[in-house]
């Protein structure tokens, strides 16, 4: 449990804690991005020079690597080819600090481009603590994007946008106003709702958390441990967090849900604002939150605009490090430097980053369209950048967030149908792997979170397909009971999915608590096979979406190859939540961790 209770015990060192807490130590996976089979292609006789890059620039850098490789680059007579691998910033930081495996799906990189320079400092700090030389020393910025508050335009205008200076203090006031948007003449918009990702998983979430702590102090630099621990700062942060819809590992969840609600005719119902990078607003307003580049998109009826917090904000500066690592020989180093120069130094190539919605990393290239008022953005903003806190302060800040974040009230509903007894991998059944994942995920909750455990198959309790093993209560009371119950689960019976889902949601709804994130986690490996009419989806969806105010979010986990993804997606959409997929059962622990990041 990442609580104060266990945090101090688990802390091995400031930076190790950071890596455990901050982001992608558990985020995403190493994957390749080009080639027919997903593996980058290297011409025969050429040396592969791998580059590990964070997801937002994979498409851009893959294109540019192809263009660079087409010039037949040669160093000391050796032909080279740059290959691009998608590796989440935090995960790459962990691998670089602890030793990059040579048998992973991405080879040790010569070039590393995380979302923020902070990751490079983190790696170096960890290496130095371990008595090793720093490796992330030589960098150039590829592109930049600031963290902003993305807000539907009418709501922003109600706050005085674009003339007024708006910031986190205004968000706090709005979040704590019992009238909600009524205080601004729009009671129909309900309470203020904030989309903000989990700083343990997301760079945006970390940046937003840093910004709220700074806003609470009135400082723009030099945040201290005393600041982080101060009661008034805690009250401010807790107040902002109280408006959070839910958390999560990626801002895409919020943007996807906002767009779905908009296209369904409810543009202002899901979230009043989301803390995202500026680049995300451009993609959203195009109708393409995931920035797939697809055509034939439907833009939202209500666009988002950027609020650059008046207290200051944080940039994602996308550095490209040529690593001073033992596995980077002279030829690889030269090739990596040449590729970086190719990307950064040529103004024509740098102009391409604008196409992706980023601010160019070459100062000779002007910030221009699409970073423009037409997209709700202001290229002259932000006026103040917040200084990145020292690592120890950063660690304390994330610890503090764990204390101040909005509390959750969750029922985990686990499928124990017969098929869960099938082999999942490495000699374990799917249920065995799920049990491990559920048990591990309990460490992500805080003691005050209310967590319950249900199971379902068919006829577990008379005609009922579900069984309440542990009713939702503060985890400090239920944890051992949940662990014991999980340990004893066995697989048998069918998949009474819909009535179990409805009953769990009804239970959470009956005890709905406005001060908490009210949710159900639904893990299933199959599709509903209950007796008729138990498997009619539409009535369930109507039930799930029947409450606009007291929304219980349902986060389904499609587990294994046979899960019915379309129906689970519909369940997630009905409550503006998110579907998670663990098609390979061996990934369930990682996926479940992402699910629980919503709390």
């Amino acid at each position, binding site marked *: 449990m990442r609580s104060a209770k266990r945090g101090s015990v688990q802390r091995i060192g400031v930076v190790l804690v950071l890596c455990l807490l901050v982001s992608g130590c558990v985020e995403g996976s190493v994957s390749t991005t080009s080639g027919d089979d997903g593996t980058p292609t290297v011409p025969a006789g050429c040396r592969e020079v791998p580059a590990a890059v964070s997801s937002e620039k994979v498409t851009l850098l893959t294109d540019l690597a192809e263009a660079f490789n087409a010039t037949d680059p040669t160093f000391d007579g050796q032909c080279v080819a740059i290959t691009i691998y998608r590796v989440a910033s935090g995960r790459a930081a962990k691998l670089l600090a602890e030793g990059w495996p040579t048998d992973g799906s991405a080879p040790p990189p010569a070039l590393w481009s995380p979302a923020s320079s902070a990751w490079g400092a983190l790696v170096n700090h960890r290496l130095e603590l371990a008595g090793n030389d720093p490796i992330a020393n030589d960098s150039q910025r590829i592109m930049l994007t600031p963290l902003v508050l993305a807000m539907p335009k009418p709501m922003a205008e109600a706050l005085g946008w674009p003339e007024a200076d708006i910031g986190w203090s205004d968000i706090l006031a709005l979040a704590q106003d019992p009238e909600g948007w009524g205080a601004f003449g729009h009671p129909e918009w309900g309470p203020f709702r904030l989309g903000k990702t989990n700083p343990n998983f997301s760079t945006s979430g970390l940046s937003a958390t840093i910004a709220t702590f700074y806003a609470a102090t009135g400082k723009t630099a*030099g945040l201290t441990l005393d600041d982080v621990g101060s009661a008034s700062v805690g009250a401010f942060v807790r107040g902002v967090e109280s408006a959070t819809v839910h958390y999560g590992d990626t801002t895409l969840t919020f943007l996807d849900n906002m767009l779905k609600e908009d296209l369904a005719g409810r543009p202002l119902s899901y979230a009043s604002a989301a803390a995202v990078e500026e680049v995300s607003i451009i993609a959203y307003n195009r109708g393409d939150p995931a920035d797939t580049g697809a055509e034939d998109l439907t833009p939202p009826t209500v666009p988002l605009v950027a609020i650059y917090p008046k207290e200051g904000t944080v940039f994602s500066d996308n550095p490209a490090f040529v690593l001073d690592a033992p596995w980077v020989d002279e030829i690889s180093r030269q090739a990596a430097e040449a590729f970086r120069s190719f990307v950064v130094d040529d103004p024509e190539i740098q102009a391409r980053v604008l196409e992706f919605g980023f601010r160019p990393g070459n100062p000779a290239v002007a910030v221009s369209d699409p970073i423009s008022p037409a997209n709700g953005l202001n290229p002259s903003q932000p006026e103040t950048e917040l200084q990145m806190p020292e690592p120890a302060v950063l660690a304390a800040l994330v610890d503090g967030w764990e204390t101040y974040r909005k509390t959750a009230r969750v029922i985990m509903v686990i499928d124990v149908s017969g098929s869960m007894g099938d082999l999942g991998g490495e000699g374990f059944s799917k249920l065995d792997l799920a049990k491990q994942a559920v048990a591990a995920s309990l460490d992500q909750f805080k003691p005050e979170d209310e967590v319950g455990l249900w199971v379902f198959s068919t006829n577990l309790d008379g005609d009922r397909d579900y069984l309440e093993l542990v009713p939702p209560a503060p985890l400090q009371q239920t944890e051992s009971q949940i662990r014991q119950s999980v340990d004893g689960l066995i697989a048998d019976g069918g998949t009474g999915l819909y009535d179990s889902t409805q009953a769990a949601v009804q239970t959470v709804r009956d005890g709905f608590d406005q001060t908490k994130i009210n949710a159900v986690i639904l893990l299933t490996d199959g599709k509903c096979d209950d007796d008729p009419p138990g498997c009619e989806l539409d009535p369930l969806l109507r039930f799930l979406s029947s409450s606009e105010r007291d929304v219980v979010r349902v986060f389904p986990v499609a587990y294994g190859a046979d899960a019915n993804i379309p129906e689970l997606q519909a369940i997630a959409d009905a409550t503006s939540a998110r579907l998670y997929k663990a098609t390979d059962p061996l990934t369930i622990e990682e996926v479940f961790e992402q699910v629980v990041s919503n709390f």
Partner: protein
Amino acid sequence: MRNWRPALIAAAVGGIILLTGYLIERTPDEGVTPSTNADSSSEAVLACPATLRPACNALAAELGTTVRSFQAGRDPGPGTVVIAPAADLPANLEIGEVAARSPIAIAVWQDREGVLKTHCGGTVHLTCLSFAYGEAWRDLGGLESWGSLKLGLADPTVSEAGLAAWQAVAGSAVPPGLGVGLRLISEDDAGLMADLLLFGTARADVVVTTEVAIAGQLENAPGRGGRLVVWYPDPAPWVTYVVGTSGGKGTDDLMAGILSGNLQSRLGALGLRPARGEATELPEALGVPGVALPAPDESERAALLDAWNGLR
């Protein structure tokens, strides 16, 4: 204070572009003939730090050679002539004459400059700024949304340019608000100016650095947050750039070409001051620099670095 001259960059930008392009495109038979044999000098190459790269590109075109990057302290290899501060040259290089100079100057975003000029009594000078770092802009007469006055410097422990700027800012005393106001620190003056443009006023309102580094980004500034205005402290530290080489074919001729009267007279157009005498053809945004302060001796250098480390 004297010899300062505020200069809006607008008109200057064109000057640099045109003159640089002019120098690059001119051929020797148009009259710009270095005092060297072009064939032999072409066998040696020029190496320059990032700050001087634009100027070196133009010089190399004149001299019929190419340019490579030079990093402080690293041996550029045989057959290379380096133009850099003497302290940045590796020990194995033979240090030649001064090739160019650059005074320390102040670059301010134009909207901030207007406020500072009023606040400081009509001029922007370091004495006035020393009491303004970290202060709220609203208290200086600016907008509340600008936050506090933020300064940018190159790291004096890494580069000579950084040390010279630090001497200008803190030579007599470390300004009281610098602990809060110093918000942009880059490894060298080229990096400082790049960061200033990339992050705009979010990271720094004012930088103190070499005139040549400022000149290299003047034309880019309007596309990255606004125009920059240049002011000069008086007296001011100057950075001198020497030629250095470890020898090799053509290096003597290349050095002679760099020091030739013809090329020296054209440095002004590239944002540099000649080794001796006044610069001509300077971009309009650049003005009359302050009288040169003597370079700090060893004890003064140590004191400056101690002050810096104390601040950090």
